[in-house]
């Protein structure tokens, strides 16, 4: 008896230890994923020191096999991507040179550490960010303005003057030149005579604003920044091309923080530059959030209506049971299959027919018959439909019978009871389904690759042009950016920083969307607390 008791208790201890350590394992795995992504992602934005590097030529050939890719006999300014470059363990060094005006933009070069004969962090070395997303490492000397020479320390003051000029340029382009341009194009289509007064007037106006623009641009070009490069040469950079200037080696912690935050802000608010190796990912962020929202808007009513039918109206027979099983199993279909379905059915069949209905005279246009945001969201809605149906059904079933009876007893019909009592009380269940749908929809990339999510889209799906929401357009998506980045970056070189930053952003997006949904659900739960706790 007693022996058996002890044996039982030992077994139980063993089970507890086993399951406990498994939970630990899961937590460790989860934390390390988050830690990796957050640390690598944030490091992408932190100020990295800039070095003056002298690479000795005479070492060439000693290191063997891939000596040909080593750059030799050069003095250069570079950002070193090995964070622990001083340590003896480091044998190879990744050097990221200026990308401004360079052909090999973005690609770091690899150098054996033994080749580096001199390494220094000059205080006056500046990182100058350009408006096109590239950057220049150089020592600023002075600033040339139309009036006089100014010291490089007045960069920010002069930048503000330039900013005003830039705004004027944009204003002329947007408010005057492009409407005139459209007007002229329209006139040409209508075959207005070149001698017609309206045409002449438009041409004159165009010429006026065009020359005004040229003047402004010339004024802008008279501002320039003179810098000296690593090999002693001097270079003049148009100030209009610069975006920021910052001294990485001299910066104190506050300046670094300021730069860090402004880089993060740039990342989420700016459009990609330099073939998505620089600049921000705003269009991808926008596309991801918009796709998830559209998906939610589509999946919620569909799922809720289907669940209402299944839970409230469908008879209790074997057909309905089979439907219910099919719905649950639909959640297990691989997402790539949904992608194929979306492409084959929505894009080619539905979209193609829509096109031939809307534009019957043109056989070659593909507006809806091409992958785009609408079909992507709809396919994702289909993909997440099962979870919404299942949780809504559960929510509907949890509504107490006595409340339905109470409603009927006051003269309500079945429809009124569902609308006024059952559905409101099932909202926590519906929200649970929506949360799961958002979590799945925001993280899913595979089907989107076929349905219009692209690495780079020129236009946002929402803009100022009628009809403002262009659901037929292709769109950018953080997941696609990550997928693409994983193939085109070397992990060792730290070039994957942008990819990790995009991963982090995607996590944040999922987290934020979920938090909003969970908050709504909790508010609803509190309203009906008696039935939930």
């Amino acid at each position, binding site marked *: 008896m007693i022996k058996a008791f002890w044996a039982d208790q030992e077994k139980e201890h063993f089970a507890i230890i086993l399951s406990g350590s498994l939970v630990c394992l899961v937590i460790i795995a989860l934390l390390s994923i988050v830690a990796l992504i957050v640390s690598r992602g944030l490091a992408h934005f932190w100020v990295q020191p800039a070095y003056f590097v002298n690479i000795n030529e005479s070492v060439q050939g000693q290191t063997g096999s891939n000596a040909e890719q080593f750059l030799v006999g050069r003095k250069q300014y570079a950002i070193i991507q090995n964070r622990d470059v001083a340590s003896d363990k480091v044998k190879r060094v990744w050097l990221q040179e200026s990308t401004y005006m360079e052909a090999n933009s973005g690609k770091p070069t690899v150098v054996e550490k033994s080749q580096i004969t001199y390494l220094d962090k000059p205080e006056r070395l500046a990182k100058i960010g350009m408006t096109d997303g590239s950057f220049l490492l150089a020592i600023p000397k002075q600033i040339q303005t139309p009036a006089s020479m100014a010291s490089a320390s007045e960069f920010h003051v002069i930048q503000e003057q330039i900013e005003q000029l830039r705004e004027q340029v944009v204003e002329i382009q947007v408010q005057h030149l492009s409407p005139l341009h459209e007007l002229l194009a329209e006139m040409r289509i209508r075959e207005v005579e070149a001698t017609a007064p309206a045409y002449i007037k438009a041409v004159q106006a165009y010429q006026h604003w065009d020359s005004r623009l040229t003047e402004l641009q010339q004024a802008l070009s008279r501002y320039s920044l003179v810098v000296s490069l690593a090999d002693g040469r001097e270079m003049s950079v148009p100030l209009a091309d610069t975006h920021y200037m910052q001294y990485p080696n001299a910066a104190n912690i506050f300046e670094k923080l300021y730069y860090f935050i402004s880089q993060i802000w740039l990342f989420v608010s700016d459009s990609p530059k330099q073939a998505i190796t620089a600049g921000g990912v705003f269009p991808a962020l926008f596309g991801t959030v918009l796709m998830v929202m559209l998906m939610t808007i589509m999946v919620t009513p569909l799922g809720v209506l289907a669940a209402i039918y299944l839970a409230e109206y469908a008879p*209790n027979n074997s057909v309905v049971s089979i439907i219910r099983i099919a719905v649950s199993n639909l959640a297990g279909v691989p997402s790539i299959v949904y992608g194929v379905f979306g492409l084959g059915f929505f894009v080619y069949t539905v979209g193609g027919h829509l096109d031939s209905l809307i534009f019957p005279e043109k056989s070659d246009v593909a507006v809806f018959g091409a992958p785009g945001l609408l079909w992507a969201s709809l396919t994702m809605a289909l993909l997440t439909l099962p979870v919404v149906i299942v949780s809504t059904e559960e929510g509907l079933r949890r509504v*107490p019978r*006595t*409340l*339905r*009876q*109470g*409603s*009927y*007893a*006051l*003269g*309500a*019909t079945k429809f*009124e009871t569902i609308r*006024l*009592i059952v559905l*409101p*009380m099932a909202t926590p269940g519906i929200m649970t389904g929506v949360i799961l749908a958002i979590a799945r929809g925001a993280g899913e990339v595979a089907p989107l690759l076929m349905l219009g999510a692209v690495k780079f889209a020129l236009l946002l799906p929402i803009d100022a042009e009628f009809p403002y929401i262009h659901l037929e357009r292709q769109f950018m998506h953080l997941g696609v950016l990550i997928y693409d980045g994983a193939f085109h970056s070397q992990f060792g070189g730290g070039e994957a920083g942008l990819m990790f930053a995009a991963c982090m952003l995607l996590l944040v997006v999922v987290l934020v969307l979920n938090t909003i949904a969970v908050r709504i659900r909790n508010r609803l739960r509190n*309203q*009906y*607390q*008696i*039935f939930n706790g």
Partner: protein
Amino acid sequence: MDALDSPLFTVPKLNSLAKSDIAIEVNDLALYFGQRKVLHEISMRIPKNKVTAIIGPSGCGKSTLIGCFNRLNDLHQDCRIEGQVIIGERNIFHHKQNVPELRTKVGMVFQRPNPFPVSVYENVVYGLRIKGISDRRLLDNVVENALIKAALWDEVKDNLFDSALLLSTGQQQRLVIARALALEPEILILDEPTSALDPISTLLIEELINDLRSQFTVIIVTHNLQQAARVSDYTAFLHQGELIEYSDTDTIFTLPAQQQTEAYITGRYG
């Protein structure tokens, strides 16, 4: 109190009721759940503006019987009914009967209070909103009157727009009564309305029933024989789906005609 303990007036015998004094006439009502016969050919006449108690051991079919009066049994798919229930000169099982309208005339209160998870106010006006009434002043009036009738007004008048779920169980039960009264029903059915309540709340509800008797036909199902004796004018004793005895309360409790009734009342079973 005294009036409750010993009725000062005696009620007319059931068989001497005039046609105009009958609220519900039940003729040979039989009810089946699937194959199972739950009610066996019940015939009874429930007098107008009086309190009728239905007693009997649990599972004998009390709830099922009153569920026939507002056709709430319709919700069970396997339920089959034979016979007639006549309310207002019409058989309510007639296929042309407007069931929601019937249910506004025959109010029902259940064993456990079931307020909707909305404000006190919205609970009371629920039935009216269903009917499409949305005039604010009218609704305000109805709420006040119904809550006064249900003896709840003084307790909730300052918190009309708080969630009904914040009320105590006893208050919730009176709210549910007010909700039914708001529709001005002709008949009010209470299915063991006090079995989930404490003694004080029970007393309040019994007093309330006493006040309602002049305006409504009240049917109360109860487990509690003292309660039946205290509040009702007539009492029906149901046993295994059969109506064993139905008479004025005095007769049932003092001179029961049937052996089974006497056995039940004296506590030999049930």
